[in-house]
């Protein structure tokens, strides 16, 4: 995973709450067996509406999505994160993220920055009034900054550390392989097996 310390890019205001993962990428796009190429599926139903934000310049080049609360609810599909990243997003800002989406983001290297809703409203107004405004998300300082607005965001400390270091989870876990083996040797005999 690539290291992430700070990112600057065009902010995209998405004034919707409960953006579920079926909206981020409909199931029909989940049939691919590769890890890339999901950008076509991103918000595919909404993108058919010419007034949708991602159909308007300069937002097509956006890389910081600023969305309403309860972003990423529903299905566990990590493809939602991949679709956002394949399109070019590096950060999603929202007042509340669904747990699985937040976890998936951390694994794939997308920053899910939790910002208080009044601050999201400030960012929305700025990005709508001055389309193309660049937003800087600083993971070290845990701040989102655009023009003269600087607001703090929350992110789990451990996730932040992993993103800053660009560390692979499996490699980290396998450092504890002895502990896993020791645990396995003491599991009760009545636990189920699939074979």
């Amino acid at each position, binding site marked *: 995973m690539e290291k992430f310390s700070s990112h600057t890019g065009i902010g995209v205001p998405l004034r919707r709450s409960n953006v579920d993962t079926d909206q981020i990428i409909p199931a029909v796009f989940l049939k691919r067996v590769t890890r890339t190429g999901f950008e076509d599926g991103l918000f595919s139903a909404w993108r058919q509406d010419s007034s949708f934000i991602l159909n308007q310049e300069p937002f097509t080049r956006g890389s910081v999505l600023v969305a309403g609360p309860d972003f990423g609810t529903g299905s*566990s599909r990590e493809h939602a994160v991949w679709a956002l990243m394949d399109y070019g997003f590096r950060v999603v800002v929202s007042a509340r993220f669904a747990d699985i989406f937040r976890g998936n983001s951390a694994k794939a290297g997308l920053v899910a920055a939790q910002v208080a809703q009044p601050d999201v409203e400030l960012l929305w107004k700025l990005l709508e009034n001055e389309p193309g405004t660049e937003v800087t998300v600083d993971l070290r300082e845990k701040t989102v900054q655009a023009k003269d607005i600087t607001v703090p965001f929350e992110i789990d400390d451990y996730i932040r550390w992993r993103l800053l270091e660009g560390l692979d989870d*499996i490699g980290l876990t*396998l450092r504890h392989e002895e*502990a*896993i083996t020791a645990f396995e040797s003491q599991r009760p005999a009545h636990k*189920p097996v*699939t074979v």
Partner: protein
Amino acid sequence: MARTLAEKVWDQHLVRKGEGQEPDLLYIDLHLVHEVTSPQAFDGLRLAGRPVRRPDLTLATEDHNVPTLDVLAPIADPVSRTQVETLRKNCAEFGVRLYPMNHAEQGIVHVVGPQLGLTQPGTTVVCGDSHTSTHGAFGAMAFGIGTSEVEHVLATQTLPLKRFKTMAINVTSKDGRLRPGVTSKDVVLAIIAQIGTGGGQGYVLEYRGNVIENLSMEARMTICNMSIEAGARAGMIAPDETTFAYLKGRDHAPQGAQWDEAVEAWRELRTDDEAVFDAEVDVDGDALTPFVTWGTNPGQGLPLGENVPDPEAIVDENERVAAENALAYMGLEAGQPLRSVKVDTVFVGSCTNGRIEDLRATAEVLNGRKVADGVRMLVVPGSMRVRFQAEEEGLDKVFTDAGAEWRSAGCSMCLGMNPDQLAPGERSASTSNRNFEGRQGKGGRTHLVSPLVAAATAVRGTLSSPEDLV
């Protein structure tokens, strides 16, 4: 120290306690796999030269992509076919047991695990599917994971996780029963409407109270299944005699002396009397009536007897905008009685309501009646076993006599990944779990309902409950 059920199961699976900000490392007892969220995970293993650590704790089935008609022919959609074939190759290469299409044990992953007796009290169960919460009905800690985590579990049989908070959902009524015509689906839809789609975020929900205690295992699974629709990581119900009776004798349940040993351990899996939940919610079981959704998230639901809400009356701006968008998408008018909403399609099935009791309930309403003109009804068993059982009981005959279609096992119309889909603008009453925009097919409109409401709706052509059929 007094602990909740969730905390007990967590502690029993602690491989290593995290230091400082580090997450805990939890052992996973059962990893269920399907074709959609696994290909990139197996690919990751291959690239890193890693094996599947415990194929004996891993089980795969084909469900999301499979057609439910002409099941003996190859899958027509080449992309779906590739995904299913990729799963077969991966399972063969990595030594994972797979139940493919047309196998007697094939079915929706969350129907298969419990019916085989693999889902057991006090286990940790994961799957690359958010409805893994279903398995919590057995007192298991079960939750959905993303593809990176699927790879992590395949490689290590563990997951790094931060402790969840705990929330008690107390569902009680005077005599511990629900009113006639009210099912566990109505209970969970009412809970989600009460706490909201984000209400459970960060929590494991424990469903408790005399109403829950009196529910069958299958009814409990319906409730736990939809925990994720309230944003929760997992939903759990303490195991009891009902749980043990369901498990006894199943293929993968403990046998002989191990059974007694297991039951003894399972009896300890209860929240201690003095334990404190981080949050508690009370639900009045006596007040519950059949419940349906009117909007485009599962929290947008109301009792069937009510009218479509007026967005103008909603104070919270985000909620109001969401309601306006939902009514526009759903093609509904504020103030319209929900009972007046006409449907085109009725779908009975899915990991939420595709089990034998759901089919029996549906058949009971349909028996001797006909599906209304202009309405198509699909009845799709959650697994091949459910299909065979229903056919043995003659339920298939009841469905086809009524004019419904009887299909083979799969996720079917719950999500738009296989041929069973809604056309743009088409409206369904569906026993599935999500009414998101386009969930059942692009432009499709979904009302989530119980099997009883689905069957009554099929007969009348408008959203109805069995009491409307006199």
